């Protein structure tokens, strides 16, 4: 470890740590633009200037991002030379900046704004005509480029090359004609485009999906987990009046680092603002309140004990799966899940397996059942129907077992890609909830259990899955006292997974790494 002094305070960091990160450990802000913890430092924005104090020598101004912490180094972030240097850099960056903050999406979370307040001069002396450059120019499926707002930190250029492995952005021109640009006629084509809006420290790269939707300070932000694939990237869900407006990655070095993919980012934006959502239940074709549908399901399962095939879904939280296993296994002909078929991942974050919580299903010992086998089982005369938690899968299974009854718990009654096809005729439909509408945990393919916080409210009258399962248990005269005595369901879940000791509130922000599941237990 290297022990150094920053602003008179001692800090220990691993040798090689740069001064920005060392200062961060002391909660001392060294402002920066071109530096990004996930990218190689270039040292060109000149915002992170600090002073190195060496006894007997005048203070030496240098950049923190490319200065490594060494034993005995004495650093000042408040010396007059470095304070003046940072203010000068800001004055330069602001000289040609359009200052259109009132109509800029980035306002409120803009590093140019923030650092100007904290490190700037407070007055502008630039009285020349400002440069004209391209504005709101689409450069990909999701990103618009505003070259006038750009401060040329080149994070975006380096991100596309270093991280997204798709070097599609360049600095074109020279000197004050420098601009960020795509190659002519070759827009960005990448699964990581959305990250550009996050890493851009100013409002130069904005998301089409978020433009002019909200001021950022009006957003409600909750920590959550992406359910787009079984990597379960740590994310933030940002809503306004219960509508999900933006999805952003949150730093979790154990899971996703600093970024997330577009399949997740824009997939969730659609999934959590679902089209055609049903708020009422259905029983035998008649629209009924959700509670009545729930009661119908409870009584059917109880009356026809041992006759329904129950297929659980990886969209449910681990707690819901635990409860479902406990309540439904004694009532079902068989309780199982259909493993999601894997497609190719992208070699970066996206795994290609759209099965957010399949690891939980596996670890809870719920039986995997191939789609074919499930259809066969459903078609058997001894099976009277299918209880499914996913409309898409239900449609596929029923297609091979015509005439079987269906009970469905999902947010929509049908998710058929083919609108002309006959709608899924569920005998009982109980409107379900979205993963974003409840507190719970997800376990990724790597065994990291993370908490997703409730970011949206479910529609009034909804009988959420947990309540539905409790109602079924009550109808079946099951005792749930084993759970009732625990602090919460998460505590019970961790016990069931063989790693007791934490409640939902005690799950760390970056998750809990579970011990590898025993192969025997998995099988």
């Amino acid at each position, binding site marked *: 470890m290297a022990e150094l002094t920053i602003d008179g305070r001692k800090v220990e960091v691993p040798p090689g740590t740069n001064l920005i990160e060392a200062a961060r450990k002391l909660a001392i802000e060294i402002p920066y633009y071109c530096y990004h913890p996930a990218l190689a430092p270039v040292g*060109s924005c000149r915002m992170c200037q600090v002073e190195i104090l060496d006894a007997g020598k005048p203070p030496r101004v240098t950049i923190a991002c490319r200065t490594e912490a060494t034993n005995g180094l004495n650093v000042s972030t408040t010396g007059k030379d470095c304070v003046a*240097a940072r203010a*000068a*850099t800001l*004055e330069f960056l602001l000289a040609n900046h359009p200052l259109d903050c009132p109509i800029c999406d980035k306002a409120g979370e803009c590093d140019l704004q923030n650092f100007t307040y904290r490190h700037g001069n407070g007055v502008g002396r630039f009285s020349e005509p400002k440069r004209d450059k391209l504005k709101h120019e689409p450069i990909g499926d999701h990103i618009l480029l505003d070259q006038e707002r750009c401060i040329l930190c080149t994070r975006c250029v380096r991100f596309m090359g270093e991280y997204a492995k798709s070097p599609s952005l360049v600095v074109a021109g*020279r000197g004050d004609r420098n601009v960020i640009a795509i190659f002519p006629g070759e827009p960005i084509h990448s699964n990581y485009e959305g990250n550009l809006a996050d890493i851009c420290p100013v409002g130069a790269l904005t998301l089409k999906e978020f433009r002019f939707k909200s001021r950022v300070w009006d957003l409600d932000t909750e920590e959550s987990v992406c359910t787009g694939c079984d990597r379960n990237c740590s994310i933030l869900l940002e809503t306004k009046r219960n509508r999900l407006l933006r999805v952003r990655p949150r730093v979790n070095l154990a899971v996703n680092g600093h970024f997330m993919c577009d399949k997740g980012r824009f997939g969730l934006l659609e999934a959590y603002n679902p089209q055609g959502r049903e708020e009422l239940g259905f029983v035998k074709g008649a629209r009924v309140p959700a509670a009545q549908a729930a009661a119908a399901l409870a009584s059917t399962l109880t009356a026809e004990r041992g006759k329904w095939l129950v297929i659980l879904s990886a969209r449910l939280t681990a707690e819901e799966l635990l409860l479902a296993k406990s309540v439904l296994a004694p009532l079902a002909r068989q309780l199982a899940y259909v493993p999601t078929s894997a497609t190719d991942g992208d070699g970066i974050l996206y795994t290609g397996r759209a099965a957010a919580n399949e690891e939980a299903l596996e670890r809870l010992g719920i039986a995997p059942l191939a789609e074919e086998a499930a259809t066969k089982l459903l078609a058997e005369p001894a099976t009277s129907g299918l209880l499914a938690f996913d409309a898409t899968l239900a449609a596929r299974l029923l297609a091979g077992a015509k005439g079987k009854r269906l009970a469905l718990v999902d947010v929509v009654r049908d998710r058929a890609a083919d609108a002309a096809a006959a709608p899924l005729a569920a005998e009982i439909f109980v409107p379900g909830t979205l993963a974003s509408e409840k507190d719970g945990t997800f376990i990724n393919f790597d065994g990291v259990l993370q908490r997703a916080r409730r970011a949206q409210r479910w529609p009034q009258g909804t009988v959420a899955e947990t309540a539905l399962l409790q109602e079924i248990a009550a109808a079946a005269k099951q005792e749930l006292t084993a759970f009732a005595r625990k602090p919460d369901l998460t505590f019970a879940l961790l016990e069931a997974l063989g790693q007791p000791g934490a409640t939902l509130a005690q799950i760390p922000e970056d998750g809990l790494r579970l011990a590898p599941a025993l192969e025997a237990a998995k099988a």
Partner: protein
Amino acid sequence: MKTYLSNEFARRDPLLLVEAQAKGRYQQAKRVFTSLTPEQVVDEVKNAGLRGRGGAWFPTGIKWSFMPKELKGPSYLVINADEGEPGTFKDRQIMEKDPHLLLEGIMIGSFAIRAQTAFLYIRGEYLTAHDALATAIAELEAAGILGDSAFGSGRPMRIVLHRGAGAYICGEETALLNSLEGRRGEPRPKPPFPAVWGAFGRPTSVNNVETLANVPAILERGAAWFKTMGTAQAPGHLLFGVSGAVERPGCYELPLGTTARELVEKHAGGVKGGKKMRAFIPGGASTGFLPPDRLDVPMDPESLRKEGTMLGTGGIIVIPEGIEIVDAARVFSRFFRHETCGQCSPCREGSAWSDQVIGRFQNGEGRAEDFALLEDIMRGSKQRTICVFPEAFAGPLGSAIKHFRSELTQVSAQRAVGRAATEGTALHG
């Protein structure tokens, strides 16, 4: 006075290999390759006190001694022939008239740093020089001097000629390396220095054309001879360029420490048309303006540093009476604004902003507070960027303010009157 750099400069066509060999050329390179060690060559150059003629005046032998002695993989000599400093045209003379003088220096330099490949990066606009070098390299290859066994020493030697694409910044050695590799010509942050991480990530020494052209003579006549010329700290001759308003502009080989007055008045024939001198630039655009009362300062790095400027490339530009300093300064501020690579915020914005501000003085709109603004722009960018480009654009700007401040104000005020008159604005009443 006996010259050793410019003997062939009066020629029309470049000296050919057979002619060069008849004059005893390549004997030193042959001696080096067949009977000396790299250490002996480095020591001789170090003892001679040869310093880099590209403008930084760093001791060449010491630079070479930074190169690793034990090598796993290749190392390179890169020749900076991207001569772009306004007022500078000395390397061009060598390459156009006497390419073999440079090429022999390259061979010896490569040997000294254990490099078997040299990359000669030549300014894109230097077509004549490029063609002369291409021919000369082909001659050497045909003669078996360059190739798998230079001078039968068993040691391979190869020179790759590479044309730049016309950017001033590529004369900065690490920007040159990036450009050579096919990247944007932007200076690299240092450390690592080229001796550790240079061309294609290999140990590299970057040397200027004229510097290498000095090497064969040093090997031939010895360090002691070399030190008899020039000053104690900067021995040898320099190819001084004199341009601007003089009777005989040109490239003059004289010992370091020769005064600007001798160069301008004796060799270049004085200010054109017998006019008075308003100012002169001692060593290329970035060294800025000096008033005529500094003409007796010796032209060597140390003497000019004491004047608050630099020797740079030794390219003198003479500005006569009748040319306003503000106009001359604007020419340079436009040039530097155009040529900054733009990666560092202070340089990109500072070079453009200062150009706009000096433009105000030029257009009769200069304000008293603009001097402080210009000073702040320079203070905010000098020593605050990856390379020393801000020092370059601050050269003409800072010296114009330092030596010609009242003239700037006066010219701006005069032109304000002119503007008002042409715009029909009433000045009084």
